[in-house]
């Protein structure tokens, strides 16, 4: 188990280092995900222990956004002043994006293998 946590951390560290060194436009953890994916492709299967470590992290994933979300208290003033453009902009754009992406994928992927 600790071995697989080490693997996940190492992938993130390598990702962060590569992003920093090469000035890539993606976050280190996303590159870390690509690295871990590459490791899995080479290996051909997900080791059981890695699956359970990852499952644990993913079950807790919603919780991990609470500290960043609490940052809302830094901007009460600004959010209040621009409530209409920000609020309506977020609602309209988020819903429209879901609808456009979902409908395109639904329509385009119809013939693809299930």
């Amino acid at each position, binding site marked *: 188990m600790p071995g697989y946590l080490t693997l996940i951390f190492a992938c993130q560290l390598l990702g962060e280092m590569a992003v920093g060194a090469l000035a890539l436009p993606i976050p280190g953890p996303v590159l870390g995900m*690509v690295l871990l994916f590459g490791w899995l*492709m080479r290996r051909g299967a997900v080791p059981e222990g890695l699956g359970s470590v990852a499952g644990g992290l993913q079950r807790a994933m919603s919780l991990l*956004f609470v500290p960043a979300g609490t*940052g809302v208290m830094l901007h009460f003033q600004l959010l209040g002043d621009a409530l209409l453009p920000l609020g309506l902009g977020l609602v309209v*754009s988020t819903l429209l994006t879901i609808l456009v992406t979902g409908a395109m994928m*639904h329509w385009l992927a119809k013939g693809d293998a299930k």
Partner: protein
Amino acid sequence: MTNLQETWVYLSASPLFHLTLTLVAFQAASWLFERGGRNPLLNPVLGAVLLVVAVLVATGTDYGTYFEGAQFVHFLLGPATVSLAIPLFRQWHRVRASALAISVSLLCGSLTAIVSAVLVARALGGSSEILASIAPKSVTAPVAMAIAEELGGLPSLTAVLVIVTGILGAMFGPLLLDLARIRGWPARGLAIGTASHGIGTARALQVNETAGAFAGLAMGLNALATALLLPILWRLLF
């Protein structure tokens, strides 16, 4: 009384208090979500944030002090993102079969996210600082903040807008997709991940592994697409 006060002073200065507060608030919000029949309006991230903010405001605690404790939770976002390689690997046969559909849908979604947010905010009188802050709102926070800074927005405001976008997508996305009769897990996951990054992905993973894998993939690809496209679009259109 002095004893209690001393204890409070000690506790509120230690990271343990705000770490525990974060966990307790999330447990309470999750309990409410389950009790309410998983009603999307009772989104646990939203509930937990409101609870924590209420406690911090009531105790006169500033965000920096809170974050000293909460950073331990926040830190795990990185490893959790890395671990999304596992559902992606397990669903790789589906992803490969739909590579073209994924690319086109993602690109359309990415452009919709940027253009619609900026146009609506501008039509309602948003300043250029507001527009630059809202433009990258569908992308995972570290990338969105870097882009906002580049365009002349406020990175810390962008971080809040990113979270709100994530919560909105997790709350209303499933309902909207039901109404549009989009029932396939790949399409549902891709839509939520493109619009609502990690918060949408976390929600999708709770419902279905295929949806979670496509959401995680969409989150990563949209970060890349937005980072490359938005600075160019910004100069051309806005």
